[in-house]
């Protein structure tokens, strides 16, 4: 018997619904790349310029108090032989520079596809402290969180752009590997331990390789830049960010200086 007009219409609707469902499923299973390929492949021959400099600290050295790990977790204190550690939030170096400042090219490096470095960025928990305290990594790279401590940690990442996470890591546990799919550098992502509240770290996820973190000399260097004009940002977890516009010529080096002043 031939299908009636009603039956044909109903069947047609079903086919349409199936097609729509299939498309939805495909979209869920294979999402578009989170960051569209927005540029041409990077040509290393172009990177001839360098911007370097230092981050100064102006004013009286801020006070801070050493961390009493023993009252909260004796295993942590034992790892330091009972010696109390200073918090890493504000470290003013002997030469008057500021440590743990994240310096990066905020604007001007767009339009290129830079190859990803091999391996994961690493965040280690050693002696109930995060190492490194501040770091940069590349968008699309993975962050491997490791522990060598004999006590349990809980890694809590406060992603505002990337997915936030909250994972326990008992002693001897496997690394927690989180892929950072999106840029997250304004501000960098905070990571803290819910069990040991003094533990915190900052991870900036940047779409290009032009970033650095100041160390014991408070210096930074951003090599292999193509000549051009850039906006550089220096960011500190307590004092926030400050910007400078820098123009650098082919085969040239530019030196700049950031100065943070003590805020209450």
């Amino acid at each position, binding site marked *: 018997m031939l299908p009636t007009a009603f039956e044909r219409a109903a069947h047609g609707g079903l086919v349409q619904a199936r097609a729509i469902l299939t498309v939805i499923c495909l979209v869920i299973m294979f999402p578009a790349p989170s960051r569209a390929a927005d540029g041409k492949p990077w040509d290393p021959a172009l990177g001839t310029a360098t911007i370097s400099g230092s981050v100064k600290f102006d004013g009286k050295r801020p006070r801070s108090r050493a961390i*009493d790990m023993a009252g909260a977790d004796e295993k942590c204190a034992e790892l330091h032989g009972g010696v109390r550690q200073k918090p*890493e939030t504000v470290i003013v170096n002997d030469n008057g520079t500021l440590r743990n400042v994240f310096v990066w090219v905020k604007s001007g490096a767009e339009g290129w596809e830079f190859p990803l470095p091999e391996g994961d960025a690493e965040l280690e928990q050693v002696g109930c402290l995060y190492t490194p305290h501040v770091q940069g990594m590349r968008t699309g790279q993975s962050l491997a969180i490791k522990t060598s401590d004999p006590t349990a940690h809980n890694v809590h990442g406060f992603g505002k752009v990337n997915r936030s996470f909250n994972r326990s890591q008992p002693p001897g546990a496997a690394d927690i590997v989180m892929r950072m799919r999106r840029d997250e550098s304004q501000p960098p992502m905070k990571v803290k331990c819910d069990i040991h*509240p003094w533990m915190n770290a900052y991870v900036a996820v940047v779409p290009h390789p032009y970033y650095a973190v100041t160390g014991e000399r408070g210096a930074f260097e951003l090599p292999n830049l193509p000549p051009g004009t850039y906006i550089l940002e220096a960011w500190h977890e307590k004092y926030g960010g400050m910007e400078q516009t820098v123009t650098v010529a082919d085969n040239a080096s530019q030196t700049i200086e950031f100065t943070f002043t003590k805020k209450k």
Partner: protein
Amino acid sequence: MNESQYGWWLPPNVSAHGDDIDLMINLIHWFMLALFVGWSIFIVFCLVRFRQRPGHAAVYEPIEARFNRWLEVGVAVAEAAVLIAFAMPVWAKVKNEFPATNTNPVIVRVIGEQFKWLFHYPGKDGKFGKTAAEYYADDNPAGLDFDDDDGIDDITVRGLHIPVGKPVIARLVSKDVIHSFKIPVMRITQDVVPGMEIPIWFEARSTGEFQIGCAQLCGLGHYEMKAKLTIESPKEFQRWLDEEHSALGL
């Protein structure tokens, strides 16, 4: 503290007011046991005595009997006695009558945060440094104004030290959510509410090392919100204070 310190009944009592609290807990539990057993027997009796049988119709009016009234009055009098004769005096003593300043109490500020306790002592000068919520930071968990000179000698630690036989006043504050400051061996439980400073007091009558916990579910890490309580002789307590001061370079 060692788990074996806890028996099958209440944890050890090292608090000066602990006997009163334990008496209340025991009294109420025995009273509840008597009520529970009495009611259970009555329910079983009713199930058997008033079961459905041919020739017996249900009656829906309450039974008026002198015995019932005496029983009800008796229970009410017993409850009133527990409240007026036991609970109120203990409450007045523990919650309202704070130790006088001439007893020279130890004053400590207790800061609850997800998921640890922090203890803030006023230091040598006996004055707390200025604190405010705006100063809370990763490197400043006590919220001290580092520019205030009163705060230079303040001690901020993660474990509570107290001397035995001396009243302690704890001022409880919270940085984030509602916590509850609980020292089982001290028979102390007090909610810690953000935006408020709630004082409590207690006095230890024997030395030892015990555990402080959080008695209010405060988030995923609630189970980890513990701290060590060290009760020591006044001399040892003073030595500990001196050590803390020298750790600050004072």
